[in-house]
């Protein structure tokens, strides 16, 4: 426990994260890594949330499970995270820094401490019902886990279905569970947690498609929700990735998606922000899954491709033949017999058609999560009118209750990257609040000193696990153990019922000591889930964790060869021989502490950069903020009001004041970065000032790039040639200076999406649609009779911004869509202008006189971004904005360690989003600089200097720009190396080895196999 220096109040170094979706997991991990004890509370029996149900994710088509399951595992094994699943928050008392949360952990009827997740109970349970996870497309048992990678990997008993709870009989699960983990008498438990802060991340639900009865969901078997469609696409889903019509199991030839089901209507006046993109994704994936010739149509209003890379994705979809029809579907009728579906619609040419589809997916919107009002009441936070969590635009991650934060789709509809960003941002808020309590409640596990194994002959111990009957039911475990004794180096073998049970772990430790084992091979399950546990176990008796090796004879043997006992036993023997052979080549590896600077360098002093700088400075980290201009503020200095209704001057001046008042921030205006060297924890960067010729050398542990952007200025639509043509930025200035032209104008025409699209492919600047709405409302305030006509391609007022679009229409603005092939034409007409365009609904050319033409110009990257990208060796994306490490799960990190990005430097975004990203970047940076030392080493590449010819091959090929050539040899900094081994295979001089995966260590596996085959005792 820690006293808060300023107020003397107690600060508890622990946090409660409510909701175990991707946002909750991200927040938990960021906090845990920065030394805060985390309770991750999840309402359902398992964490994972919505993302676990998705197949792939736009716009990269990354497999959702691939990128998420490592996080699941990380949460489950992190020392500073305790997952409390199947639980609710009952109440929250106390105040920021010192809360007491009362939690009810509902009975699961399975003892989490005993269960190994073997699944036998599930197989034996006789009762089935529709699977919620697969949305009724498959069945699950009364005792079940929703998906294979579930965390915790412990089943749950549905008492509504279980015969024991309904009739008092059955107990099949109890009988078959070999570990006695089933506890039908389990009771709800209440617990009180002391935490300093709370993050709410309970996500969202999807709109109940059954309410839109006109589409027949629930009546017409071939009408699905988009989420059901995700399950159909999933290789691990109910149809193993085949798209089949529920009515007859036949592959559909024509599929339609209906957009905005349960969004953008009177009851749901917001846009759900993800469905345009996920429908595009589902259509593209469906195309991959179905034979050629199948047709895919998306019926929509506006295509909301407002995020980074989204337009390119949409472009690709169109090239692949996905058809988009601009018509909101009205209703479906089912064809009796074929159960296909008939849709009447009007196409862009004004033709009224009736078309038959084999399958229809409803792109359901997001709604507030079920039970949200109870959660709000228990935690004392306010909800907004849609039922989502409420917050103010200038403090977007704070709820109405101090010390309680929010993130993810609970804060409003959004996609995974935005959810993850917010989660990191919320973690940043908590880090700041609990800075003085950091590290007080977490204690790194202490291990005994390692015994020296150097130079000793290998003494291998092999432990073969029965996993109850999971392995032993197929593989002759005893035979495997016995024959392992014959392998070179093996001095001890044993077979155990459940290797991961507490008793077995202890027995194993004793055997290591007793038999002086210096290598351990576990023949059991997947290293993905169990390696950390076993590694820790060997460490407890002083064995280096890298001297441990695993043979997966369950997931990759007994489970897939259940019908071939002999072959499976042979295969298990081979796997064990291979593991033993490699283990003899293993060497202890040590992660070594390396000192680091806790200073952050922030480049760019706009709202994003200032927010990031403040976040860190307020936690006590020194920050150097480099701004090229003479004053801080960036784009914000030019605006009038903000879309949030706030005065931008106020917002800027408050921020600037706070920055300048903070002792920990050193602001270098009129300055630029000229060079930078080093690696995570130890960067050295030179900054040159315009006024002072001497360059400053800044030593820093992390770098945050926040260089923002600027409004594009071209000559489209007579910009610069006619005084009546201005950009949206100019209009803002005119509003600010109360330009009389605005009060006199009779008609103002606005053209959206103007940019350098002759030179580069179109990307959406994300803010301009909302900015247009903001300014229409401002214009209508000062000049109510002025007609405003907006020519647009798509209106992209995503999320709650949709309400501003509605307001702008209510105020009388008229919106007319144009297309790339039929652009508006602007001509001078004396003082005034003439704009002609095609009105698509009427199919007619209209010409309007306008007093002012406002061009909504694109946001483009700041000048000098390329140079910075070279200086810091961080990449730019195709639009010229900086490129993050992973667009889904690492949205504010660069691929190379220690560098982060935020704000418009990443992609155009609103002030609110820039603030969130600034906080997120700070939180990610804090993970690094909050440590006293960095532990470096382990699985990293290492160069044998004598062999290296300085050919630069590794320098060129490393995706993380790690190797550098110094004094004629390649240097690979262990702190920066990611351990992929790409350079190793490429080095012509064979001068690089990847530790733990050295050539001899990889080859040993092959040798082990070859020798066993040569011995002739296994079938080949």
């Amino acid at each position: 426990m820690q006293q808060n220096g300023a107020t003397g109040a107690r600060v508890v170094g622990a946090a409660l994260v409510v909701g175990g979706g991707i946002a909750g997991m991200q927040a938990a991990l960021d906090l845990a890594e920065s030394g805060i004890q985390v309770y991750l509370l999840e309402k359902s029996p398992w964490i994972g949330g919505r993302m676990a149900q998705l197949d792939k994710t736009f716009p990269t088509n990354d497999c959702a499970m691939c990128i998420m399951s490592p996080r699941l595992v990380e949460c489950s094994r992190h020392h500073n995270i305790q997952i409390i699943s199947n639980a609710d928050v009952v109440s929250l008392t106390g105040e920021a820094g010192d809360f007491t949360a009362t939690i009810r952990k509902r009975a699961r009827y399975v003892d989490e401490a005993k269960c190994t997740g073997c699944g036998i109970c599930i197989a034996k349970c006789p009762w089935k019902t529709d699977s919620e996870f697969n949305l009724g497309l498959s069945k699950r048992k009364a005792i079940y886990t929703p998906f294979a990678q579930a965390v915790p990997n412990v089943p749950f008993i549905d008492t509504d279905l279980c015969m024991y709870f309904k009739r008092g009989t059955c107990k099949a699960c109890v009988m078959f569970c070999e570990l006695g983990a089933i506890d039908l008498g389990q009771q709800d438990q209440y617990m009180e947690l002391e935490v300093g802060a709370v993050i709410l991340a309970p996500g969202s639900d999807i709109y109940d498609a059954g309410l839109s009865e006109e589409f027949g969901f629930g009546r017409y078997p071939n009408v699905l929700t988009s989420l059901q469609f995700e399950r159909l696409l999933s290789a691990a889903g109910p149809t193993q990735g085949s798209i089949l019509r529920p009515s007859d199991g036949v592959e559909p030839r024509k599929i339609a998606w209906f957009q905005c089901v349960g969004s953008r209507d009177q009851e749901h006046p917001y846009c759900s922000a993800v469905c345009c993109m996920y429908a595009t994704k589902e259509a593209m994936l469906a195309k991959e899954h179905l034979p050629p010739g199948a047709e895919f149509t998306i019926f929509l209003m506006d295509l909301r491709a407002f995020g980074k890379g989204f337009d390119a994705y949409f472009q690709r979809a169109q090239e692949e033949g996905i058809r988009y029809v601009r018509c909101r579907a009205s209703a479906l009728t089912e064809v009796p017999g074929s159960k296909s579906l008939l849709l009447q619609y009007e196409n862009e040419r004004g033709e009224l058609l009736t078309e038959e589809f084999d399958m229809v997916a409803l792109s359901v919107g997001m709604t507030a999560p079920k039970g949200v009002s109870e959660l709000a009441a228990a935690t004392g936070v306010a909800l907004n009118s849609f039922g989502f969590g409420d917050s103010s635009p200038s403090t977007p991650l704070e709820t109405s209750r101090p010390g309680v934060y929010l993130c993810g789709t609970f804060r409003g509809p959004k996609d995974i990257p935005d959810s993850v960003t917010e989660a990191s941002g919320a973690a940043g808020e908590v880090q700041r609040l609990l800075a003085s309590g950091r590290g007080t409640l977490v204690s790194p596990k202490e291990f005994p000193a390692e015994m020296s194994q150097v130079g000793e002959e290998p003494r291998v111990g092999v432990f073969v696990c029965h996993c109850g009957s999971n392995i032993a039911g197929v593989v002759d475990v005893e035979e495997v153990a016995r024959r392992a004794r014959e392998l070179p180096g093996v001095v001890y073998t044993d077979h155990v019922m459940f290797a991961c049970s507490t008793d077995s772990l202890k027995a194993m430790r004793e055997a290591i000591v007793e038999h002086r084992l210096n290598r351990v091979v576990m023949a059991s399950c997947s290293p993905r889930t169990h390696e950390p546990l076993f590694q820790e176990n060997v460490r407890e008796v002083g064995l280096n964790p890298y001297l441990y090796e695993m043979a997966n004879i369950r997931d990759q043997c007994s489970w897939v060869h259940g019908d071939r006992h002999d072959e499976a036993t042979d295969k298990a023997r081979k796997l064990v021989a291979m593991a033993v052979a490699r283990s003899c080549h293993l060497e202890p590896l040590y992660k070594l502490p390396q000192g680091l600077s806790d200073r952050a360098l922030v480049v760019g002093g706009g709202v994003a950069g200032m927010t990031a700088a403040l976040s860190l400075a307020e936690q006590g980290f020194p920050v150097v903020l480099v701004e090229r201009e003479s004053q801080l503020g960036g784009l914000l200095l030019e605006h009038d009001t903000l879309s949030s209704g706030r005065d931008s001057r106020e917002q800027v001046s408050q921020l600037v004041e706070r920055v300048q008042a903070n002792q920990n921030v050193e602001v270098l205006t009129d300055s630029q970065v000229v060079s930078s060297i080093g690696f995570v924890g130890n960067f050295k960067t030179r900054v040159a000032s315009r006024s002072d010729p001497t360059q400053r050398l800044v030593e820093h542990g992390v770098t945050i790039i926040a260089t923002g952007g600027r409004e594009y200025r071209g000559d489209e639509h007579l910009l610069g040639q006619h005084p009546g043509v201005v950009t949206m930025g100019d209009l803002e200035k005119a509003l600010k200076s109360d330009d009389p032209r605005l009060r006199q104008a009779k008609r103002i025409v606005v053209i959206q999406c103007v940019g350098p699209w002759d030179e580069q492919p179109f990307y959406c600047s994300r803010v301009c649609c909302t900015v247009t709405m903001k300014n229409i409302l401002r214009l209508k305030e000062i000049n109510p009779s002025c007609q405003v006509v907006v020519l647009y391609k798509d209106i992209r007022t995503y999320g709650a911004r949709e309400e501003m679009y509605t307001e702008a229409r209510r105020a009388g603005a008229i919106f007319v869509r144009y297309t790339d092939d039929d652009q508006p034409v602007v001509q001078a007409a004396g003082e005034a202008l003439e704009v002609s365009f095609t009105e698509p609904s009427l199919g007619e050319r209209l010409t309007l006189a306008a007093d002012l033409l406002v061009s909504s110009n694109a946001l483009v990257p700041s000048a000098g971004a390329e140079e910075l990208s070279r200086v810091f060796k961080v990449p730019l994306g195709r639009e010229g904005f900086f490129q993050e490490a992973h667009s889904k799960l690492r949205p504010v990190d660069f691929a190379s360690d220690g560098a982060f990005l935020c704000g418009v430097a990443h992609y155009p975004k609103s002030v609110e989003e820039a603030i969130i990203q600034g906080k997120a970047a700070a939180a990610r940076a804090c993970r690094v600089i909050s440590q006293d030392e960095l532990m470096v080493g382990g699985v990293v590449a290492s160069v044998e200097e004598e062999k290296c010819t300085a050919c630069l091959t590794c320098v060129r090929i490393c995706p993380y720009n790690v190797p550098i050539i110094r004094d004629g040899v390649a240097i690979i900094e262990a702190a920066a190396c990611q351990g992929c081994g790409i350079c190793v295979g490429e080095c012509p001089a064979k001068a690089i080895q990847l530790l733990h995966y050295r050539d001899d260590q990889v080859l040993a596996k092959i040798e082990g196999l070859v020798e066993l085959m040569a011995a002739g005792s296994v079938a080949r």
Partner: protein
Amino acid sequence: MSYAFYPGCALSASALPYGMSFREVARALGMDIPELEDWNCCGATCFQTLDEVSAISLSGRNLALTERSGSQELVTPCSGCFAALEKANQHLAHDSLLRTQAAAALSEAGLSYGGSVRVRHLLDVMVKDVGLDAIKEKVTQPLTGLKVACYYGCLLTRPHAIARDAHPEYPVSMDRLMAVLGAEALDWSYKTQCCGASLALARPDMVTRLTTRILDNAREVGADVVVAACPLCQTNLDAYQGEHAVNGSQENKTIPIVYFTELMGLAFGLSPRALGFDKHFRDPAPALRSHSLVI
């Protein structure tokens, strides 16, 4: 609860079987539901077009009469009347300008309206107030094997704000009623598609297209009869069946349209003649007989 019955203009004329069967069934159920005295035309959609205040006054007069008679609920068997009366009722409650204008007109007829009346559709009264259990008790000849397509038409559930049906796009009350009678109510896609009745005279060309679409689907899902809850729908669907208006004789291309009250009566074992089964364009008798229903 005291009801007044508003038959609407068609019940004693083209919709004779509806009126007959309603009275028979009401008697069998012991319902007390006297006809509103001196009622006048609700104005239908015609007056809404011509003049909104007139429309509201016409309906308003019926509401005022109901109020004066001491009844709280005005029950009508016609969806068109239901929509017109209830719309007027709501406008009178919420639109102060219309309320003043209509009040002036009503006073000319010696009436005033305080807004206390609830407008109900007969189907709703049967299902909710009489109740399916009470109806089930009266069934002596279950309609076993009879496949029916329940047709609700447009104005029974629309505009949503007026009708306030829990399932505006896919109503189920009549289906549940039919199930209680022993019939099999089929799922089909045209329950609430408009048949075009309001343009039956003026645009028979268009109306035929609408009815054909509806009836084709009913036949394709295997319906023996279509059940209606509105005189306009019944007459329109019965009269305009494909290009074979009225005396088109292709048996297989036609389908009888009956009132839900007729089927109730039949299931109650009442005399088919008294129910008006003989007063249709397409004779329902063969379809009913094919399921061994006495008729």
